[in-house]
C-alpha cells in the first residue's frame, strides 16, 4: 500500500496560509476520487508558532500522519521551517520553498502558498480544472483572479525551466 499513497507536508508559521493550502490540496484530491486524509497541528498557531499540515491520498489511506522520512513533497512557506521539517522528506523527495518563485511576479505577497501549490500541482495527477475549481470555492471570490495567477505562475515554472 505505501507505494500507492502520495504524501505531502506543508509547513510554515501561523498566518501564512499553511492550513488553507492543505485544505485546497485535500479538496482537489477528494474530488479526483482518491481516499484522502489530512492532518494538522494547530496548537498556538495564531501566536506565531510553527504550523504543519499533512495530506495523504491514494486508493486507500490508513494513518493520517505522514511517517518520518516518507514525504514525497515538502512545501515550506517560511525558510526557518525547512530545518525542523526536512526529516519528514524521503531521500528522493522534493522540497519546494518560496525561493522558487519570483516574488515580483506574484499578484500579492500573501499568495505564496497558492503559488507553491501551483509548483506542486505539476507533479500530481489531478487536472488543472479541479485545482482552479477548488481555488475558486476555497477563498472569497474576490481573491480568485490573483490566486489563479499565482497558481499558474507556480504550475508553469517547470515548463518554463525546461522548454
Amino acid at each position, binding site marked *: 500500500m505505501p507505494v500507492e499513497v502520495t504524501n505531502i507536508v506543508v509547513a510554515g508559521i501561523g498566518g501564512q496560509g499553511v492550513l488553507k493550502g492543505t485544505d485546497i490540496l485535500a479538496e482537489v484530491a477528494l474530488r479526483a476520487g482518491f481516499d484522502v486524509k489530512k492532518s494538522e497541528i494547530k496548537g498556538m498557531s495564531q501566536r506565531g508558532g510553527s504550523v504543519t499540515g499533512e495530506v495523504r491520498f491514494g486508493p486507500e489511506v490508513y494513518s493520517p500522519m505522514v511517517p518520518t522520512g516518507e514525504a514525497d513533497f515538502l512545501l515550506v512557506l517560511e525558510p526557518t521551517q525547512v530545518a525542523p521539517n526536512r*526529516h519528514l522528506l524521503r531521500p528522493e523527495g522534493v522540497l519546494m520553498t518560496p525561493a522558487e518563485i519570483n516574488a515580483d511576479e506574484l499578484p500579492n505577497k500573501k499568495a505564496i502558498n497558492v503559488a507553491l501549490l501551483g509548483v506542486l500541482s505539476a507533479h500530481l495527477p489531478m487536472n488543472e480544472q479541479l485545482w482552479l475549481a477548488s481555488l475558486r470555492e476555497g477563498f472569497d471570490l474576490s481573491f480568485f483572479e490573483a490566486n489563479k495567477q499565482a497558481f499558474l505562475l507556480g504550475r508553469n515554472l517547470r515548463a518554463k525551466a525546461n522548454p
Partner: protein
Amino acid sequence: MKIESERKLLSGDEAIALAARHAGVALGAGYPGTPSTEILEAFAEYGGRGQWSPNEKVALEVAIGAAFGGARALCTMKHVGLNVASDPLFTAAYTGVTGALVVVTADDPGMASSQNEQDNRRYAVAAALPMLEPSSSQEAYDFVFRAIEISERWKIPVLLRVTTRVCHSYTTVVPRNVPVEVRPGDYSKDIKSRVMIPAHARPAHRRLRQKLAEMLAYNESCDLNFIVPGDRSVGVITSGISYMHVREALPTACVLKLGFTHPLPLDRIKAFVDSVDRCLVIEEGDPYLVDAIRAAGLKVEGKPESFRFGELDVPRVRRIINHDLTPEIPKPTGKPPQLCDACQYRVVFESLRRRDCIVAGDIGCYTLGVLQPFEAMDSCVCMGASLGVGLGLRHVLPEAQARRVVSVIGDSTFMHSGINGLVEMVYNPPPTGHVLVILDNATTAMTGHQEHPGTGRTLSHEPTNRVVMEDLARALGIKRVFVIEPRFGTSEFDQLLGECLDRKELSVIIARRPCILIAKQLKQYAAREEAACECDTKPALCQ
C-alpha cells in the same frame, strides 16, 4: 433537515457534530479545550443548539438535566475537562438517563496543547460507563449514533473517547441519509433513580453493575469490534487511531479492532489470541487494553514503557513490532509560540518581572509569560489554580516573600474556576493580603477565541446576559477592585500593582483590553447588536 449523502472531508470533531445534528441531539453543552473545541462550534453551525458553560462540570450537569428531561444530549470537553466534570459523571452512572447522553472526552496524547497526557479510558472503568473509541471521522460519525443507541437502550451515559489525531484529522465521511428530528423533552417523575440519597444509591449501584454485565454480553458479539483477516503468525489487538498506524505498519497481519472498549469483550479477545501465533497489543498512552487482557490470563505482548509517552505513529508502531529499542531521534521542535508583539499582557508581565513577583499563574495565552523575556510565571497547574496556589504561598512564606506573591488568571479561566478561588481569598485572607490580576481580553484566546459568561455573548456570538467580574468581586466584599487598561509606554499599570503590593489588603486588578486578534469581530458584533437594538425585543440586554 436535508442531508446530502455525498463523500465529505470532515475532521473527527466535525463528524461528531454532524452526527449529533443528524441524530436529533437537542442540546450540546461543553467548555472549550483542544482538541474538542470545534465539536460544539460545528454543531451550532450545522443548526444545533450548542452552548458554552462556564466549565465542564456545569456543562455535564446541563447535559444530564437535558437527558433527565428525555432529550438526546451531547457534552464535550478535553481530557482534563473530565477531571472537572468527574463528580457529576460518576453519579450520573448511577442515576442513569431517560433520553440519551453522550459525553465526549478528547484526549491529547503527546500534549499538542495540554498540560498533561492523562488517558481517560481509565474513567470508563472508574465510573463504570460504556466507552466507544472511533479511529476515523467516519467512525466518529457512526459511533455517535451507536452511542445514542446504547445510551437509550441501557439508560446510561456513554463516553465517546477521541484523541487529537481523530479530532483534527480530516478523513472522508459518507453521512446517513435519514436524519432524525430533534425530539423535545418530556418530564416523567422518577425519584428513586434520580435522587441519590444512600437509600436510592445502593440499589442504583447494583443496577449499574447489572447494566454493565448486559452490555458486556452485547459487546461480545457487537459489530463495533471486528477482525481484519490476515496472516495468523502475528495478530494485533488495537483501538482508536492506533488501528490506522497498525494497518499501515503491518498490512498483512490479522487484526482485532476494538471500537467498544469498555466493558471489554474478553471472550472475543481470548478467541482471537488463541487463533494467532504471536499476539501484540498496540495502544497509545497507558497500558489499558494490555493490562486488562493480561489480567484475564491471556498471553499477549505489550509495548515497552518508552512508548507510553507521546503519540504513536507508523514508525513507532514498527518499532514496537520489531522490539526496536534503539533511541528514538527526537523530532526537531518548531518555532515556539509567543505573546503577540502588540499583546497588552506584555505590559503586565513586564511589570511583574520588574517587581520580582512570585507569580502563581494559570492556563491561557498568558501562560506564555513564562517564556523569555519575562519568565514571570512561577506555577501553572490546572485551570483556576492561580488563586489557591497564590493564597497557599502567601500563608506559609515569610512576610517579605509573601508580599511578592501575585495570582494571575485569564478572564475565561476566572469564569471557569477562578471564582471559587476568589471566594477562598475572601474567606481565608492571608495576613499579608493578596493581589489578584485578571487578564481580561474579552475572549478565550488560547483555544481560538470562544465566548464565555464575561463577554456577554453566546457560543454563536449572539448577545446574552454578561457576568461583570468587577461587580462580582465587589459583591464578595472585596473593597479594592480596579479596572485598568494596560497600555504600552505608560507606567499606570505598574504603579497600581506597586500600590496593591504595598498594602496588606485584598486587591483585584482587572487588566482589561480586548485581544487584538479579534478587534475586527468585536466591531462586527457591536454593529450587529446596535442594529438589533433599534427594533428590539430584548431591551434588558441593551445596557
